[in-house]
């Protein structure tokens, strides 16, 4: 009954396995490249960013698994509205997603990172003006 593994389902399994490590790496990279974030949001902001990154990956996983870019795009649109109301700039959302895609490209074989990249790009399409 269990369906055959595909690059999408394998990629989703990798994201599930590496969720916390990826969230940490992306948060660290984001704060390293933009020191103003620490001035603006502080340590509490960084904690929240880490939490949000885990949540982003939680939403990325089913979209990757089902190869459903629209599913992730709807989430990113919702997230951007939520964060803008809390004074987080859209460009930071964009950068988070770009960094996540770069980390996945660095970590995973091309079939899996491609499957992930397609879905992240669908999300980026909503927030890139």
């Amino acid at each position: 009954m269990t369906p055959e593994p595909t690059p999408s389902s394998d990629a989703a399994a990798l994201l599930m396995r590496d969720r916390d490590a990826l969230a940490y790496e992306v948060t660290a990279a984001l704060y390293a490249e933009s020191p103003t974030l620490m001035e603006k949001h502080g340590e509490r902001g960084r904690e929240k960013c880490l939490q949000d990154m885990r949540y982003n990956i939680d939403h990325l996983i089913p979209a990757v698994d089902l190869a459903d870019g629209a599913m992730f795009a709807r989430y990113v649109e919702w997230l951007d509205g939520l964060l803008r109301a809390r004074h987080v700039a859209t460009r930071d959302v964009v950068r988070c997603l770009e960094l996540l895609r770069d980390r996945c490209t660095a970590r995973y074989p091309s079939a899996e990172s491609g499957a992930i990249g397609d879905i992240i790009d669908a999300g980026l399409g909503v927030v890139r003006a």
Partner: protein
Amino acid sequence: MTIATHDAYLAALRAGDRHAAYRALDAALDDGRELGQVYLDVVQPAMREIGRLWQEDELTVAEEHLATAITESAMSRMFERVFVWRDLRTPRLLAACAEEERHQMGLRMLCDLLELAGWETTYLGASVPIESLVDLVRKHQPAAVAISATIAPHVPRVRDAIRAIRSAPLPSQPVIAVGGRVFLNDPPLAERVGADFTAADAAEAVRLFEKRVRRDPRAA
């Protein structure tokens, strides 16, 4: 009338005023509104607005939870007021939120409206682990199962629950429906997770269950 009730109810929720919330809904029932109408035209849009206000940072999580708690108790009150005892209630529906899912109100509305249509419903509420859900399906052997999920991360759990029910040794397979925001946004997803159908709201779900389970042509 419904718009005025909606505005009064929403204002009561925003203020966290349980009694004002009760009064607004009591007035709607006094005015002859049916329970389904109050659920779908007053309670549901008001709760969606509460969710939007949280998203816009106009309400805190605590205030949002207070609105939910008030609404759940208001629904219980209204249901008791309109419920009629019957000796024979059939068919049976078992309703559960996907594992980890906590948004249970839509499922509760579905159960209440099916009860008014004469069904026997077993409402399990939030976050039901798959194994125990299947166990209860085997015990109760319902004609229908409803599974709810609001956010995408819970979709694989819905799919796994449906697979587990479909492969369980049962005398006959229940009709399985899915609902919740993630399916509302993308109705074809219902079929991809193995469900028989999804519906735009609780009233449509009642019609579709009546049609598929009772095979009632009037419900078509």
